[in-house]
């Protein structure tokens, strides 16, 4: 997995609440057998018009959004299905972190396995960052994983929670399956005890 230490980037503001996984990537794009190339379908039904051209009113299509690595979105982001295609699509587009006041459980877990950092902040910090980004789309936000901090304009600094293991995995690029496989002996002995 790609390592994550520090990220500085301008951000894409998406103030909607409860953005569900069906909006992040509609089900008709789940018919793939690999993980790649989903970035083009990210937010598909909001992003493209009926004729397939870009919807100029959708934030992702604005010039100011291009090259952004941070998405800042409303509460309860990623609710709904367990599709890992959601973080695959977000990462495929170029995002490496999402700032919100809350994330759905499965989405959070899936994101952490794909080098996509969920940054959970309180409502006040969210509001300040969102307003700053909406006011000036070139506003840079810095996310430092080692100190679990997010800094924006006007000296705004906040911390965000992450469990120690997920943090370790992101910092070191730890392969979680490799870690699990290292418990082979204990798993075998557990299986023997139970049968």
């Amino acid at each position, binding site marked *: 997995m790609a390592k994550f230490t520090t990220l500085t980037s301008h951000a894409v503001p998406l*103030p*909607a*609440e*409860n953005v*569900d996984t*069906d*909006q992040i990537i*509609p*089900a*008709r794009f*789940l*018919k*793939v*057998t*690999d*993980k790649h190339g989903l970035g083009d379908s990210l937010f598909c*039904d909001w992003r493209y018009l009926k004729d397939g051209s870009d919807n100029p009113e959708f934030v992702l299509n604005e010039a100011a959004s291009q090259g952004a690595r941070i998405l800042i979105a*409303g*509460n*309860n982001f990623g*609710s*709904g*299905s*367990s*599709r*890992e295609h959601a*973080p695959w699509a977000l990462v495929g587009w170029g995002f490496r972190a999402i700032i919100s006041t*809350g*994330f*759905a*459980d*499965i989405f959070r*877990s*899936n994101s952490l*396995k*794909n080098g996509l950092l969920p940054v959970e902040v309180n409502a006040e910090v969210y509001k300040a960052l969102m307003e700053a980004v909406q006011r000036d789309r070139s506003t840079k936000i810095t996310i430092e994983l080692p100190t679990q901090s997010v800094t924006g304009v006007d000296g705004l600094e906040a911390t965000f929670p992450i*469990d*120690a*293991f997920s943090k370790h995995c992101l910092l070191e690029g730890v392969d*979680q*399956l490799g*870690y*699990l*496989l290292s*418990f*082979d002996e*204990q*798993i075998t002995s*557990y*299986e023997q005890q139970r049968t």
Partner: protein
Amino acid sequence: MKPRTLFQKVWDDHVVVQEPDRPAVLYIDLQLIHEVTSPQAFTGLRERGLKVRRPDKTVATMDHSTPTLPKSLWVIDDQSKAQLDQLETNCKEFGVELFALGDSRNGIVHVIGPERGFTQPGKTIVCGDSHTSTHGAFGALAFGIGTSEVEHVLATQCLLQRKAKTLEVRLDGQLMPGVTAKDIILALCAEIGTGGGTGYVIEFTGSAIRNLDMEGRMTVCNMSIEAGARAGMIAPDETTFEYLKGRDRVPQGADWDAAVERWSQLRTDEGATFDKTVVIDANQLEPMITYGTNPGMGMQIGESMPTADSFENASQRAAFEKAMGYMGLRPGQPLLGQKIDVVFIGSCTNSRIGDLRMAAGVFSGRKVAEGVRTLVVPGSHDIKKQAEAEGLDEIFKDAGAEWREPGCSMCIAMNGDNLEPGQYAVSTSNRNFEGRQGKGGRTFLASPLTAAASAITGKVTDPRSLLLS
């Protein structure tokens, strides 16, 4: 020993390793697989040269993109076909049992797990599908996982998990006629919202839950995820054992008795505490319906939709207004009488025999309103057979509904069964997200009774107006 909750007991029983500051290595007793969320996991195994550690604890089915037309009319698009073929190849190569399209045991993953008896009390069960919470109805700890985790479980039969908090949802009292399990869970979603259960495992308790049959309990646990909780659980009891007894994959003979003895211990001890409790008075529940674009945007069917000023903060108001815009509805208006185009009766939430009997009770001797397309999609071939043995298929067909082959169908609209842009549907499925049932489609979630009643009148209808007439 300290009193423990049902969740704590199942959790404790499956911890293989718990190191400080690390997630637990949790043993998984059963992994269910389907075509959509598994291909990349098998690819991962191949790339690492790994095997499936316990094919005997792994079962696969095809359900999401399978056609529901009769076999002679099967049309599958190339991508779906490739995905189904891939599943078949993967299962063959890795020795995983597969109930493929055409197999008499095929059906929706969360329907056939319990039906065949794979689902049992006290098990840990996962699937790359958020509605895995369904299996918690049996006192299993069951939750949806992403594809990376599907690979983890295939390779190690374990998952790295941090323990969730516990939320008791207690329902005492008696449901009024016309009020069903679906209305219970829609009422909970409306009460706590789609993020209300985030971080929690729910245990449903109380007399109204005890009085539900297994199918009703599955409906309730199925939509726990719509309230944000990864898992919902109900302690097993005589109703559970009665349902399971004699099914294909449950223990038989003396082993059965021993299992029941063991399973009977799976209940929250007196004195055990939950991190949070929500109490709902079952006597007060009414048939529920959603009006918006997430399952938390629901109300009693006779109510009027809210107005923007009834929401506390600006972003909730914005979300509400966006939903109203998508749905093409006017705030503050009632939903009763709203004209509809489609009725869908099916999905892992409401496609079991009890659901079909409920719907058939409403359809019997009546006709679907002109211009309303009505799909009835059983959850499995077993259910289809049972329904046909009872003559339910004839009731549906006589009423003018389409009686289809099993599958997820219009719940997720991957198989060609979908709403057209702008159409309104009353659906017994679990999600009313924008575009969920087809791009531009508009969904009202409700019970099979409400869906059937609405099909008859062509409008959103309180089923009690037909049941009591």
